[in-house]
């Protein structure tokens, strides 16, 4: 489904901005999609604040997918955002053991990646917290590699390191330091 040329053109412009790292594109999408997402969430036992939070999460998901080349959606961006927000809200409702009537989760547009399914939320939070404590430049290096998914060569240029091998070596040391921080708080798996 290609949608109308008008929407497609605007969507292409937004996607182009996201690919270039322009966070302003998300603000534009937020303003365009706030009303439908608020209506959805508030119809289903949520508040305005819940709706805004879910919409922001959806936009971050869109950003992540586009930036890492995982965005393959043929409908309008608004449709993707609405479907993502809807699924996120339903999961959040289910988690809080509230009953949901009249709407079902669409597994085709589920935004959870295999990685998210495999890794316990609690563990990810421990690592996140450890990354915060790790300090610069390790925090920046690991974010560039695992979040921005930059190549070693690009990271070397961005961080003023000699070459990719220097980055590899530094990344290894940073991971060791991170692991030590994580193990302090992680339950033992035997």
């Amino acid at each position, binding site marked *: 489904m290609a949608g109308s040329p008008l929407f497609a*053109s605007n969507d292409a412009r937004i996607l182009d901005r996201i690919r270039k790292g*322009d966070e302003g594109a998300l603000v534009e999408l937020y303003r365009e999609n706030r009303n439908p997402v608020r209506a959805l969430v508030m119809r289903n036992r949520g508040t305005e604040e819940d709706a805004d939070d879910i919409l922001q999460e959806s936009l971050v998901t869109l950003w992540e997918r586009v930036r890492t080349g995982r965005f393959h959606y043929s409908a309008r961006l608004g449709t993707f955002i609405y479907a993502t927000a809807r699924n996120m809200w339903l999961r959040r409702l289910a988690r809080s053991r509230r009953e949901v009537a009249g709407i079902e989760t669409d597994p085709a547009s589920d935004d959870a990646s295999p990685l998210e399914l495999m890794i316990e939320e609690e563990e990810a939070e421990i690592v996140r917290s450890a990354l915060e404590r790790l300090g610069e430049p390790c925090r920046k290096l690991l974010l560039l590699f695992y979040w*921005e998914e930059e190549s070693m060569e690009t990271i070397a240029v961005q961080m003023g390191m000699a070459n990719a091998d220097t980055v590899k070596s530094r990344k290894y040391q940073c991971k060791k330091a*991170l692991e030590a921080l994580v193990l302090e708080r992680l339950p033992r798996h035997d």
Partner: protein
Amino acid sequence: MTDDIGTHIASDEELLSKYALGRLLGSEQEKVDRHTAGCPACMEALRREMRVAAGARKLGREDLKAELKRRIAAPPVRAAWPRIVSVAAAISIIAGLGVYYAWFTGKGSLSPPVGGSPPLAGRTESLKQDEGNAPARELAERVTAEKPPESPAPAGAHAAANQEGSASHAPRSADNNRRTEPSRGSTAASSGAPMEEPGGGFWSDGIVERAGGALDAAAARGGVSAGEKNALLFKSKALKKEADQTKDALQGQYLLRQKPASALTGSRERSGRDQQTVPTRVDQRGSTTTMTLYLDSLLDENDLKRGRVEAVSDDSVVVTLGGKKILYRFPPGQGAQQQRQK
């Protein structure tokens, strides 16, 4: 070891990372899965790698969400009245000086004002027609300084959307095409990419450096990543606030000018504000390239005179101004190549 990986993947950092980031092909991933099923040490190494990836993604998402919240919470519109009044005052002063000069020297085609001023447009047009009156002509050019035209819709945008829509679901490769080159002619305000216009000039949005060295690194590889853009936010507080008026400073073959951001049309002004860039008009006049920067707070005239312009590649130019570096993208061939010709 009974599978075809041939060694413990626990010591293969690159393979572990590719697995955790989902960059392996299906067959490669299956090999790793088969291997780790019979290798507890490898399974544990893989688990550690995925844990790091998950934590980094979580932190990256939270950073981005916080940035989004900050931008949403920012006041959408600045107070307009002080700006309108100051711009109107500047126009009045400049126009008044022009009229006074033409009248006083007797070279202009204007009659002395009697019983009030003639309409502004009429006055400036008369001044422009006076070939022998250079100062008045210059003033007239300033009074009639262009209101920048709106950017046309990006060509090929629809095609790009269709391409996005028809993209396959094949696993990602290590060098995914997400780092695409900025498309020429796309929305300049969004990317720092130049927007060429029929008159020969173009618009380019300058990205202002905040963290030392990041800009040089960006220029060296010809682009600015999301992480760097965060570090290159425009800090208008660092600029000394002065009266709203046009100021010039000639530096080598480049003429640096500044104008108040309020002189921009609405969409371009909003774009510059939202993205915290410096909308800049670039025009080639004879052997001089004029760069007109539209700023919220105008620089001190001495700062402007000390400004430096350096072409770092054939499509990138860095302006050092007021203690800040500003990166511009020019159309291909109009950066370093232009400088070499001069």
